[in-house]
């Protein structure tokens, strides 16, 4: 019996599982995708952080035979080396040697003198390249950086310190700190205190205008307002005088320096923001300066048409707008999804609504911008102005672009994502759980509130994460509803009512576009573009990580295993 059974089953030992090579294809596909992402992130990271690292300054002496710079010297940071392209190579040169002719791009600074920051120079014209220890890279308030040899510090009280004296550097450091402190005080006086007074004054003017528009002229009220205005004007004068005095102090001192070409220049000390001796610094000092540059980039306001300074207002604006948008889209989207899934009778109408919502996700974002402009800005904003801010007209308050309208427009843009994710999450709550709740005597809304929504919370948060990522990176609609190149103040500040939702704001995405394509000096702006791109990616990743963290916490609490 056993012998008969033994040979009746035969397995084909030579056969291979069908489709095995596809494992390799799918692996390759994944590797390619991951590789591209890493390459992109790496490129942005390297080029973005490169701009903050302090670099050495070269001093170049040209040969006497050089075309335009014969015998002259120039100092700068070498930013690019490449072969000479598009230049006419003299036949004599071409026949004499077979070496490559290189050219260097230098950042020479001193825009007030030369008119430009970057210039190409032929290596063939260069006689000698040195790295002098005493050359200094000075950050200035106007016209960008200056690269020069310091000569002396001259104060109005007659004190002069020349650069060869031992305590010159210390004194220069102190001066820069003092100047920085004074600028901070001036900013507090002008932006905060005078700003508050101006706000109050404008409110009073509007009140007076409202009274004047009334039928009977109310003398008493008008005179009260005039008195208040007088008091405020006096305060304003005092503060303005303080600010003026401080600004005068910033001019009471001069810093004199000599360019590589030999010319001497002088600037008031108020113009000094910082300085460093690039060829003298150790790696640690450079790293310290690197971190300091990054910090300044993140915390300061932009200067020189956004090509210098920091991007803090853009970071702040992006962050506030994303938060406002999330606050607007979550209740709206979740409630819509609850109705669609739980309450609406599942028939043709509900299916069409669902299809419409899904299609909304594919509408180009600029269309939302136009809708936001027409509906939110002109219609709703205009109505609000007519009802509540009549006196300010024709200057619009809410009838123009602002952070509130931008947040609402983007909320509309991302609501389909939230609705779809919430519907999926609600549908995946097990039926047994709902039945248990009903059997306990809960009504439909109680079941939704206590059982369904908490169990669906991780899925809802996933939808919110996707919405935030999409909203934080859209730029086109924002341009129509409230983003500007340079905003005078932040949408959130210390002056009552603290939330100024009608203000225009700055946005990192728009900042990148502005730097890259609208800036007068594209070479100077290029490194900033990379740095700002890196920052925008980092900000979105941070927001997403925050939401993911919250989702994991909720998932652990309500472990159903579904999401």
């Amino acid at each position, binding site marked *: 019996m056993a012998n008969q059974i033994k040979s009746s089953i035969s397995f084909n030992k030579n056969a291979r599982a069908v489709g095995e090579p596809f494992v390799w294809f799918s692996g390759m596909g994944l590797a390619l995708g991951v590789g591209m992402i890493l390459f992109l992130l790496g490129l942005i990271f390297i080029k973005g952080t490169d701009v903050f690292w302090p670099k050495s300054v070269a001093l170049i002496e040209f040969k006497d035979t050089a075309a335009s710079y014969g015998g002259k010297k120039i100092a700068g940071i070498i930013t690019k080396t490449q072969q000479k392209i598009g230049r006419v190579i003299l036949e004599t040169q071409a026949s004499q040697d077979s070496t490559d002719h290189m050219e260097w791009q230098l950042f020479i600074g001193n825009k007030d003198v030369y008119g430009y920051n970057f210039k190409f120079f032929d290596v063939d014209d260069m006689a000698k390249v040195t790295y002098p220890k005493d050359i200094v890279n000075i950050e200035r308030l106007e016209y960008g950086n200056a690269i020069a040899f310091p000569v002396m510090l001259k104060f109005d009280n007659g004190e002069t310190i020349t650069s060869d004296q031992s305590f010159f550097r210390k004194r220069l450091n102190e001066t820069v700190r003092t100047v920085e402190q004074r600028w901070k005080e001036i900013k507090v006086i002008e932006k905060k205190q005078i700003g508050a007074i101006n706000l109050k004054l404008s409110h009073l003017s509007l009140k007076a205008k409202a009274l004047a528009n009334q039928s009977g002229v109310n003398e008493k009220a008008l005179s009260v307002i005039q008195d208040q205005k007088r008091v405020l004007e006096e305060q304003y004068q005092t503060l303005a005088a303080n600010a003026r005095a401080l600004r005068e102090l910033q001019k009471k001192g001069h810093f004199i320096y000599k360019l590589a070409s030999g010319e001497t220049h002088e600037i008031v000390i108020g113009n000094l923001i910082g300085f460093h001796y690039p060829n003298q610094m150790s790696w640690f000092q450079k790293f310290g300066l690197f971190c300091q540059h990054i910090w300044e980039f993140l915390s300061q306001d932009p200067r020189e048409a956004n090509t210098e300074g920091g991007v803090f207002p853009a970071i702040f604006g992006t962050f506030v707008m994303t938060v406002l948008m999330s606050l607007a889209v979550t209740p709206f989207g979740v409630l819509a999804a609850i109705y669609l899934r739980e309450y609406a009778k*599942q028939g043709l109408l509900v299916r069409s609504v669902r299809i419409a919502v899904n299609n909304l996700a594919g509408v180009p974002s600029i269309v939302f911008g136009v809708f936001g402009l027409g509906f939110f800005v002109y219609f709703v904003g205009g109505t609000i102005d007519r009802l509540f801010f009549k006196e300010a007209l024709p200057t619009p308050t809410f009838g123009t672009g602002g952070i509130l309208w931008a947040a609402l427009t983007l909320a509309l843009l991302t609501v389909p994502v939230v609705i779809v994710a919430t519907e999926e999450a609600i549908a995946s709550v*097990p039926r*047994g*759980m*709902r*039945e*248990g*709740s*009903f*059997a*306990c*005597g*809960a*009504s439909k809304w*109680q079941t939704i509130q*206590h*059982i369904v929504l*908490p*169990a669906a919370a991780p899925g809802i948060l996933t939808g919110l994460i996707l919405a935030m990522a999409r909203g934080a990176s859209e730029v086109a609609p924002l341009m129509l509803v409230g983003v500007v190149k340079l905003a005078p103040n932040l949408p959130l500040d210390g002056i009552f009512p603290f939330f100024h939702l009608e203000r225009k704001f700055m946005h990192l995405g728009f900042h990148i576009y502005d730097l890259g394509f609208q800036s007068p000096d594209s070479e100077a702006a290029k490194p900033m573009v990379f740095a700002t791109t890196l920052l925008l990616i980092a900000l979105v990743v941070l927001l997403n990580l925050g939401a993911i963290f919250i989702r994991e916490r909720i998932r652990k*609490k*309500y*472990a*159903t295993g579904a999401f």
Partner: protein
Amino acid sequence: MNDTIELNIEEKEHVMIDKTPSVKTHQPDRAQPSEETFSACIQVKDYHFYYGDNRVLFDVNFEMPERQVTAIIGPSGCGKSTLLRNINRMNELIDGVHHQGDILIKGQSVYDPTLEVTEIRKRIGMVFQKSNPFPKSIYENIIYSLRMAGEKRKSVLDEAVETSLKAAALWEEVKDRLEESALSLSGGQMQRLCIARAIANQPEILLMDEPCSALDPIATAKIEELIYELKKDFTIVIVTHNMQQAARISDWTAFFYLGKLIEFNNTKKIFVNPDQKQTEDYVTGRFG
């Protein structure tokens, strides 16, 4: 299977049931439920039930007595669960259902239009085939029905938790970890938790839809013990596939087949000397 039923239709002896020796169960002399102690709690009158156009219950008429266990048995698809779920109107969660006839609880129709369905469900507790604790703490699970009814006083809630868990024979096992997730319990414990949750609001009626079908024999025995204790305070209706279980724990049995009530009588009579041939065929295992 150590459970056996010695059944001889000619003998009218009391049925002896063997049990696995490791599990002790009460099997005292039960007083025979007589007509005098039968006071109707749930009445099903001329009841027909439809899923859309499909009629699944045909002219059902019987009464379930107060404070006793009524078992509803029958082969798959005969409408037992449907009838059970109609007592607390759970089938209305499905679209397109309708009925004819009435179900009354102590003389009051459950379909009374002036009565909010949530009120009916608060007076009836239900335990499902697959235990469905909420993903909350054990404490929150038990007090869920009280919370939905609006009870906020902590003293009342605490007492309800202790009473229900003791009645469900779960108190000793979980009293130190009431704040832990209910999902961390074993299968049998979860079902007992669901029973505790169902009785927390002190309903009069307890409906159980095959509560032990997903449990191992030891957990099953524990729950059967529980049902025997609970019937002192609650009217229990239990749907079960397991005939032996029905024979063990119920006082009255209703046999359904293809949506019709074939026979309703004392459990002993149904299993020893049923009136209908179909009943006899089913309980002797001629069809399943």
